[in-house]
């Protein structure tokens, strides 16, 4: 519906809107002939809707036979959706194509409505092809309405685009006087001028201010003077004085926008955008300093954005590993993206969990005996001076000789050294081989390699497991060299001497023998537990003897013998080192008393 209140005779024309009014008048006189489509844009509250309404009223008056349709874009969208929902899309199209003058308000809301855009493009094409007039308003020029199909922008810009500026002081006074006439209100001289001076440069707000004054005057039932008006308006704008600066500022902005080459402005805005986010924009700055516009400005911008995105993902990964890495300068310079990648790769490998030694196998619980004396001394030296004395240390000895305990003890001791973070890797030969196979399978050999190469102490228990694996040997060889070069300590445990490991490559063997090869043997002295067990056994015997004798005396009457309390437990607690192998000892003999009697016999 066209609002009849909006007419040309109550629209105050000033310098800021003269062009728009002339264009609208011309269109009203000869719709569809000049300026088709006519596109009017301005900030809110400057009279776009009023002009549209005035145009509609005038066209109806001059050309009563023409169908004039006024709709806001929202109405248009609603109608379109309604038509589609009720299956009357065709009727919708026919209706709009029968219109003589289409007045469409607030088309900036086209943003992000692709269906509406395509429907509107069809309607506009149809209307214009048949010489019908289209007038649209928006709060910004067509080219600045975001997310609008290029074809529609071209269509909207195809006729005349006019803007309405903020009214100047004189126009504001004229508007206020006009409004007063309409409202039948009157003010003492100077009041309206004061309002025009103080009030914001927007007609709607101007009217709001006037309404307040009219209301106030009605309440007081007395004319409001200039001073009162000023007080009432609150002088919020500091006598309206900053406005003078603001308007100067906006003029300067327009002048700068006109005179700075478009690509430089765009580039500059991009640079500011990135630098505000903390990124260095060297590449863009270089393009900016160039005399000519770069041939591929868009591509340059896209490349830069992609690099920044890459840096962000690298930063996120680094922060995941260690939150302290977030915001490092290396992630803010697209020129150093390679360094950032290397940094993250290094972090990833260094953060990969290294196999840890068994904490129970501590150096304190290691017992020094004649069989492992040299090895323990060497271990102490290594703990004192890792990587400096015996590198590598190779501990040779049979299974059960305490190799594992020794090398784990070294690893544990180095781990806790002086509170310094020492990266210790302690693994078995089998696990080492398995890890490499898994890495080969997953294509993460690089990472696996970097993980071990980053350690300060490398302990491999069970070198023989590696000896017959070609690839693992190669890897171990390179790892060996890398670690020794870095001064990291290596410790190996093996059942046989390197020379006896036939499948071990010569180069590896010579390197192992270049350190210290120490032997450990199985301890033969009886430990305390074993003695205790023997005593317990003796106790069983001594307790059994009189019973057995009694049994014999009673002519071997079957008799049940219970072992003395606690004996069984004591025997079970005996270390296996006495028997060498747990399989070789039976702790709970079935029908023990019977057997014992058999023995005694």
């Amino acid at each position, binding site marked *: 519906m066209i609002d009849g209140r909006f007419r040309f005779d109550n629209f105050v024309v000033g310098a800021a809107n003269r062009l728009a009014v002339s264009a609208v008048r011309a269109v009203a006189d000869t719709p569809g002939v000049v300026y088709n489509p006519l596109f009017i844009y301005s900030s809110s509250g400057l009279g776009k809707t009023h002009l549209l309404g005035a145009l509609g009223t005038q066209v109806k008056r001059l050309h009563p036979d023409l169908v004039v349709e006024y709709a806001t874009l929202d109405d248009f969208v609603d109608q379109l959706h309604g038509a589609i929902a009720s299956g009357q899309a065709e009727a919708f199209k026919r209706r709009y194509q029968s219109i003589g003058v289409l007045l469409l308000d607030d088309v900036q809301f086209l943003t992000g409505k692709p269906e509406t855009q395509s429907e509107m493009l069809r309607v506009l094409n149809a209307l214009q092809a048949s010489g019908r007039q289209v007038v649209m308003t928006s709060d910004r020029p067509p080219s600045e309405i975001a997310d609008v199909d290029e074809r529609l922008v071209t269509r909207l810009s195809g006729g005349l685009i006019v803007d309405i500026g903020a009214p100047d002081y004189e126009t504001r006074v004229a508007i206020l006087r006009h409004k007063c006439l309409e409202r039948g209100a009157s003010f003492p001289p100077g009041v309206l001028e004061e309002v025009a001076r103080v009030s914001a440069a927007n007609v709607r707000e101007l009217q709001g201010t006037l309404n307040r004054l009219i209301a106030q005057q009605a309440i007081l039932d007395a004319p409001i003077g200039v001073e009162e008006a000023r007080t009432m308006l609150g002088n919020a704008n500091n006598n309206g004085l900053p406005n003078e600066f603001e308007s100067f500022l906006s003029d*300067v902005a327009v002048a*700068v926008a006109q005179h*700075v080459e478009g690509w430089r402005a765009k580039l500059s*805005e991009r640079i500011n955008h990135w630098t505000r986010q903390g990124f260095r924009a060297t590449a863009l700055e270089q393009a900016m300093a160039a005399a000519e516009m770069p041939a591929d400005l868009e591509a340059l911008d896209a490349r830069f954005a992609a690099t920044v995105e890459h840096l962000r993902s690298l930063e996120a990964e680094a922060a995941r590993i260690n939150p302290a890495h977030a915001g490092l300068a290396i992630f803010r310079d697209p020129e150093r993206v390679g360094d950032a990648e290397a940094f993250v790769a290094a972090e990833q490998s260094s953060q990969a969990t290294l196999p840890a030694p068994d904490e129970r196998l501590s150096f304190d619980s290691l017992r020094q005996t004649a069989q492992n004396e040299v090895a323990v001394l060497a271990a102490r030296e290594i703990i004192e001076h890792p990587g400096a004395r015996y590198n590598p240390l190779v501990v040779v000895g049979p299974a059960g000789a305490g190799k594992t305990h020794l090398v784990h003890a070294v690893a544990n001791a180095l781990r806790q050294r002086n509170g310094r973070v020492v990266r210790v890797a302690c693994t078995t030969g089998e696990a080492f081989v398995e890890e490499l196979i898994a890495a080969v399978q997953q294509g993460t050999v690089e990472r696996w390699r970097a993980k071990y190469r980053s350690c300060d102490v490398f302990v491999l228990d069970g070198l023989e497991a590696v000896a017959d694996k070609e690839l693992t040997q190669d890897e171990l060889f390179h790892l060996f060299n890398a670690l020794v070069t870095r001064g990291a300590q290596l410790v190996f445990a093996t059942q046989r001497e390197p020379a006896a490991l036939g499948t071990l490559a010569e180069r590896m063997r010579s390197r192992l023998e270049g350190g210290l090869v120490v032997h450990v043997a199985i301890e033969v002295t009886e430990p305390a537990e074993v003695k205790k067990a023997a005593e317990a056994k003796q106790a069983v015997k001594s307790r059994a003897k009189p019973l057995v004798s009694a049994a014999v005396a009673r002519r071997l009457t079957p008799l049940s013998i219970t072992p003395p309390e606690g004996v069984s437990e004591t025997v079970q607690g005996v270390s296996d080192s006495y028997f060498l192998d747990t399989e070789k000892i039976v702790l709970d003999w079935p029908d023990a008393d019977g057997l014992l009697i058999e023995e005694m016999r």
Partner: protein
Amino acid sequence: MPVVNYSAREIVCKIVYVGPGRSGKTTNLQYIYDRVPSNRRGTMVSLATQTERTLFFDFLPLELGTISGFSTRFQLYTVPGQVYYRATRRLVLQGADGVIFVADSQRRQMDENVESLRDLHEYLAEQGTDPREFPLVMQYNKQDLPRDLITSTAILDETLNFRAVPSFAADALHGPGVFETLRAAAELVLGKLSTPVAAGMGTER
């Protein structure tokens, strides 16, 4: 006249108020200073004698913020008007991107106006600057004084503004014309941005 530095993405405009002594150059600056929000302006430097005559120069830096991606700054200077401060005037005018000539509208000051304008043109000639190309704006100040004391803007235009540069009637004490003049000067200066000279490579000032 490089007003734009592409590598630093900044636009710096030096605008100098010249004119005969007591014509109201410092008053212009003071009016602007009072109207600019404090976050947009620097400290106004004023080197004046005890009788408030400008001794060396006044300086008012304005930060206009980022415009079209360029950090934009205006530096407003005044020169001492008296004839005998010629050397100081030369110094302050050095590197000016635009000049606002503040003429005193009082009838009896006409000769001083002419003398001062001649001095400006002499300076431009010394610098080898083509006065037709140089951004210049005229301000006819004190137009609020009684009619019989002042020269009309039409006559002032005829006498002083033979190059037909933008001219404004002003009352610098109360404000009318002050920002209009500055705006016109700013637009002329910024108009130089797109000329080949100004588009030179991010020359440091």
